[in-house]
């Protein structure tokens, strides 16, 4: 039996993404002061947020990625995840893809969205 990884599937502006479940502390309501901005595009509804921990100046703080919907948790076989090809690996937070048949779901590193945000690299 192949190894699996648990991914939380979410949607922003009609596009599905997934992140490592172990990065997510909880699913909460939107707190703008904790937001990492809109690195994946502006949500249409934006009613939920993936809350995760990051370290700022040696302090653990909570950050949020605002999403339209959280679609659930999936145990995905490691055989079904891929690194992004060089020609597609541009942003520091899109780290791979989950390939399910012909569908491709981008894998997002939530911690990296916070780093990108702190560098002033976010789409607001």
């Amino acid at each position: 039996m192949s190894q699996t990884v648990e991914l939380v599937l979410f949607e922003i502006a009609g596009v599905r993404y997934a992140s490592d479940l172990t990065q997510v502390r909880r699913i909460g309501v939107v707190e703008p002061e904790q937001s990492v901005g809109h690195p994946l595009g502006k949500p249409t509804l934006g009613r939920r947020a993936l809350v995760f921990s990051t370290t700022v100046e040696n302090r653990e703080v909570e950050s949020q990625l605002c999403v339209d919907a959280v679609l659930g948790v999936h145990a995905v076989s490691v055989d079904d995840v891929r690194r992004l090809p060089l020609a597609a690996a541009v942003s520091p937070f899109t780290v791979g893809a989950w390939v399910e048949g012909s569908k491709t779901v981008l894998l997002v590193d939530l911690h990296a969205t916070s780093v990108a945000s702190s560098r002033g690299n976010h789409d607001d």
Partner: protein
Amino acid sequence: MEPSPLQRALAAAPDHPKMQTVRPDEEYFVFRTGELTLGVLSHQIREVTRMSAMTPLPRTPSFVLGVVGQRGQVVPVFDLLRFLSQGESKVTARSRLFLSDSGGGAVSFVADMVVGLRRIFISEKLPPPMSSSLSHEFLNGVVQSREVGALSLLDLPRVIASARQKVTAR
């Protein structure tokens, strides 16, 4: 009895074909995108498929439309029109993707319509006209085809290398 014209022709026919001057040619995969009819060397194309569900990529140049899953492989999709500054492709269910492994790693390009494989005599290739709006950097030549009209021959490996450079330079 007077021999018929056919009998006279057969009597004069050679036993073996005459030596012919071989005209070197190349096989091109010809397609249309926007107003352009383009050709790329067929051995540079791995496969041609229908459009499948495309996932957009954030923070990429406009010519990177996204990625598709192709038999378990994640393949970037490029828009040649945007890359060549010739407009924007309109991706529909009738669009096709052609995949290439040139330059290491698969990439794909959108085509509005596939014309097919055509053999082009090398002697018929002309240098791109100075007035061409397409950058000469990415053209191997042009051909005037009776079937498709003006056909621009793309240097696909150069296009892919340049596209990769533009993507990773950001």
